[in-house]
């Protein structure tokens, strides 16, 4: 748009015309008033940011609808969210916002080295944010909380469906493959040939399995810790409960509480080993025997996982894009000529910070 508004006659390329020594040529340079009195890059960055405002407004708005429209929503400690970690990440992003602003000021003042130092610091702080985010994600994954259709290992209510899921997992544990690589190849083969029969015709053998629960039952008590012995006893009782045809809803709630109790408020996830009786130390059978991977119950947990990972995931993608931009900028000499580029990158980065300013209270403290 703007390039067509500025017409430069033949022979007047930038380098030549810039000297201003071609007076007598008689050529004229047409110049039009641009729509807004700011550089093209900045204009486009602001237009992009205004679309981003609407993008995140839609995401956060949908979150609010789902959050407040839901009959029940998990408390942050139910889903192993740590508020102090979230607050720390907020602090990290605020620091990085300051450092990119200082990089811009240094570049404007032609302090090339200083600008680079601030830019490197911004890059590192962005990386730190992502690292903390990754740590948080892994804490969720280790508790079986992840977004997958129709659900991860998380069930919404302790009902018959939950009971049958626990039963199914226990049955699967009785046929645990001895070699997971072999199992993976076999499942690929089944998919390739369309059916287990087809795979068998093509010469694929079913992978060897063993009974992992039986192995635990037969293990000598001396080979186990006191906690594992207690856990084994609980596991045997749970097996009886899920197989009982007369089970009540309360029984399934007891099972769910044994598998993965909802942590009490303030209990730091995973670090509380204080209460071996199961109970409230956020220490269930899934923690005693990590290979169990039994389905767990978090009321409202599935919708929570979907919104949490979508919102923080989109934000993390924006952080990654910002880091790529900074990495590119770092390859330049950050002097006053590059101030425009740094300013645009900074605008984007401040916007990423802005989104987190709203996400942190909405996701961690509401």
């Amino acid at each position, binding site marked *: 748009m703007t390039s067509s508004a500025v017409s430069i006659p033949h022979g007047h390329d930038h380098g030549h015309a810039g000297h201003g020594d071609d007076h007598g040529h008689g050529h*004229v340079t047409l110049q039009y008033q641009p729509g807004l009195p700011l550089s093209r890059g900045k204009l486009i960055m602001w237009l992009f940011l205004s679309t981003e405002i609407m993008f995140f407004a839609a995401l956060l708005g949908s979150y609010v609808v789902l959050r407040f429209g839901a009959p029940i929503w998990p408390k942050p400690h139910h889903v192993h969210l740590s508020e102090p970690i979230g607050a720390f990440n907020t602090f990290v992003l605020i620091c990085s916002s*300051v450092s990119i602003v200082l990089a811009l000021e240094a570049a404007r003042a032609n302090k090339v080295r200083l600008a680079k130092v601030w830019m490197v610091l911004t890059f590192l702080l962005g990386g730190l944010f992502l690292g903390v985010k990754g740590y948080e994600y892994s804490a969720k994954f280790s508790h079986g909380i992840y977004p997958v259709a129709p659900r991860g290992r998380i069930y919404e209510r302790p009902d018959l469906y939950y009971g049958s899921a626990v039963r199914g997992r226990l049955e699967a544990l009785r046929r645990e493959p001895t070699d997971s690589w072999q199992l993976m190849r076999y499942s690929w083969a089944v998919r390739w040939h369309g059916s287990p029969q087809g795979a068998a015709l093509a010469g694929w053998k079913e992978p060897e399995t063993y009974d992992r629960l039986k192995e635990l039952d037969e293990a000598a008590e001396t080979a186990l810790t006191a906690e594992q012995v207690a856990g084994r006893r609980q596991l045997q009782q749970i097996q009886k409960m899920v197989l009982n045809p007369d089970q009540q809803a309360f029984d399934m709630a007891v099972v769910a509480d044994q598998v993965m109790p909802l942590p009490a408020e303030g209990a730091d996830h995973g670090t509380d080993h204080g209460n071996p009786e199961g109970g409230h130390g956020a220490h269930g059978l899934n923690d005693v025997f990590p290979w169990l991977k039994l389905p767990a119950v978090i009321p409202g947990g599935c919708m929570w996982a979907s919104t949490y990972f979508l919102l923080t995931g989109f934000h993390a993608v924006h952080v990654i894009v910002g880091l790529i931009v900074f990495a590119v900028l770092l390859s330049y000499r950050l002097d006053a000529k590059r101030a425009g580029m740094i300013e645009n990158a900074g605008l984007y980065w401040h916007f990423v910070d802005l989104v987190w300013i709203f996400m942190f209270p909405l996701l*961690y403290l509401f």
Partner: protein
Amino acid sequence: MSDHGGSSHGPVTRSGESADEALHHSIEARHDGHDDHGGHDGHGGIGKYLLVFLLLCGLTTLSFFTYSAAWPWRDQPQVGWAFMMAVSCTKAMLVILFFMHVWWEANWKYVLTIPAAMMALFLAIMLIPDVGMRNRMVSQERALHMARGSDLKLLEQAAAENPLAAQAH
């Protein structure tokens, strides 16, 4: 680089100076009106940024305060929500005005930010009815698997009674 605006109205003819240079100079002239261009820091300097930084940290601590045991309205979460949103809006304003330099920009800032802000606001307002309507019409399958407050109560009861531990002793 031809990405600079011009200050004069309509097409301008000027010989001897490339369009780019002319645009650049007019932008410079425009900027000089707002800040001392020769100086090292455009808008009031590093001190102002540090002040904003401290304010942001203080405000984050304030919204984190709602999580602590000292927060007086723990039984009324709505108070905390309203408070946190007010704090977040203040923080957002600080970042937009000072870190994004909008405070010092010319009037074009209104052209770009107000329509987007209004669209975002309308979008949010239009979503509000959905909060109430959300569970009025849900599929049978969803109604079957959807957690209710009673489920949480059941789990809490199971944790409190802990019949398995009672059996073990």
